[in-house]
């Protein structure tokens, strides 16, 4: 089993290398509008442009620049922020926890609502509750997150005054609720749909008929034989959604002025802070890959066919 896990980890290496290459290429090889001028009219003065060129080493040959970029990366050095003059790793570290907190809360909401919803819908196919939950699901997938956030903010913060309208506050739960729900609705919808499809698949499986032939109550059939098999199917969706949620969080973080990686990324884009932009994207992607690898490993533990296969 450790060997299998090691192999899964090894599989991500080429992807990581490719990601680093893309991030480097995007911002270091074709930085045109980035160092010269923004088209919003904010022309950078010559001094700033010169400083950026130097720090980026734009005058060195390409492979040298890539080499030193990778060498620094390997040592955990993401460069120095143009804006704050601090190491990018430090800037990112400050934003990581709020981002993680938001992502975990949103995913928690998505799982706690979406999985039971899909389960109930699948157990009563064609019923009113099935229809209702699928309407909720397809609507949730079609809602722009930031608009949902805006509406939640208007209703629960500005009109009813139950919750704070934006910001991180003291880091407590009250500030977390609205952004987490706004971010969690679309993975919730997706989970409801995949769970429903997964459970319906399992309910039609032969071994469920066997379970019924044993004289089990429907409750036990579901508890003993459906849940685990369906969860294996749902796990992929959970992993993919969880992994990409930090990226999706950008708009929600911006809307709620949440001090996470997403707002850091957007702010850095506007401030032309290339090392911070590169670093934030890299961390968001690494988070995605890490979660996916964890899901792969979870599979190995849950599914004996892979464990011994």
């Amino acid at each position: 089993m450790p060997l299998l896990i090691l192999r899964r980890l090894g599989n991500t290496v080429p992807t990581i290398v490719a990601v680093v290459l893309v991030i480097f290429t995007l911002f270091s090889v074709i930085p045109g509008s980035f160092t010269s001028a923004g088209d919003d009219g904010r022309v950078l003065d010559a001094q700033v442009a010169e400083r950026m060129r130097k720090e980026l080493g734009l005058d060195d040959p390409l492979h040298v620049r890539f080499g030193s970029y990778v060498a620094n990366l390997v040592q955990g050095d993401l460069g120095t922020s143009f804006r704050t003059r601090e190491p990018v790793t430090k800037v990112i570290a400050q934003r990581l926890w709020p981002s993680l907190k938001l992502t975990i809360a949103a995913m928690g909401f998505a799982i706690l609502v979406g999985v039971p919803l899909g389960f109930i819908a699948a157990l009563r196919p064609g019923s009113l509750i099935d229809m209702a939950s699928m309407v909720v699901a397809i609507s949730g997938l079609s809602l722009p997150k930031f608009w949902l956030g805006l509406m939640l903010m208007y209703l629960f913060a500005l009109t009813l005054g139950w919750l704070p309208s934006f910001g991180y506050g003291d880091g407590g739960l009250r500030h977390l609720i609205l952004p987490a729900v706004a971010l969690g609705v679309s993975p919730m919808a997706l989970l409801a749909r995949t769970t429903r499809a997964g459970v319906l698949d399992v309910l039609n499986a032969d071994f469920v008929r066997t379970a019924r032939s044993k004289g089990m109550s429907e409750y036990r059939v579901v508890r003993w034989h459906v849940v685990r098999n369906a969860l294996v199917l749902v796990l992929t969706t959970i992993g993919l959604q969880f992994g990409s949620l930090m990226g999706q969080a950008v708009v929600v973080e911006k809307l709620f002025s949440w001090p996470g990686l997403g707002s850091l990324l957007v702010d850095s884009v506007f401030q032309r802070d290339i090392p911070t932009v590169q670093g934030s994207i890299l961390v968001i992607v690494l988070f995605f890959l890490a979660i996916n690898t964890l899901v792969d490993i979870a599979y190995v533990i849950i599914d004996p066919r892979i464990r011994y296969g």
Partner: protein
Amino acid sequence: MKLRANLLIGGALVTVAVVVGVLAPWIAHTDPVLDANLMNAEIPPGSEFLFGTDGQGRDIYSRIVYGAQISLTVGIISQIANSIIGVTLGLTAGYWGGWWDDFVGLVTNLMLAIPSLIFALAIMAILGPGLTSLLIALGLTNWSYSCRITRAQVLSLKSQGYVQAARILGYGDFRIMFTQLLPNMIGPIIVIATLGMGAAILAEASLSFLGLGIRPPFPSWGSMLSEARDQITTAPWLSVFPGLAIFLTVLGLNLLGDGLRDILDPQSRERRA
């Protein structure tokens, strides 16, 4: 019965959006950009202005009508680009196999690893805001699904008799790919493109909301929301209507995609994600 409801509601919503977008110059009351009139600022929805006016006195209804053009243009063109890239890569990778397949697989994994919104955001940051940049950013970053599915379909079709026969008849590779294989997988590709259109419209709105897509004063639904955010306490209707427009259009595309999938791609249950 549910199948028909999907298609019916989805088709109706999409048709409305398309008709509104096409007829915008005729059904809009005012010019969406130029007709600012501070005398009319922040009038709530009513008989004179159906959806109210914004802080500069522009008619929200007219701006939403024109916004449909931007959303649909972005959705359609970016999905055509994505489909062409994804299908071409998927066809060739599945058909030729070998190192090319490995390479396409690596690139596809890479595209899947970078959240598409982040990827598009990075490209927008480099190219700067604007419709052209948006089309490039969204047209280049969301082809991995159509690529994967095309490849999978090619692998299952490749060994079938008629493909073998075409090969024996001496058809060229591209001729086999585009005349023998492609017509047999057009269903799933259309489904993915339809769903992708909804995703692209959402992405455009998100980027414009962040100030990286269509910039004010042009009436993208996303940029309208970006402006509306600051006035949400005084003029909440500014936030309601553009958001509803995005929601209903994307909902229509998603329902239509689901309905089409039931018809065109019946054995796709496991891909339903």
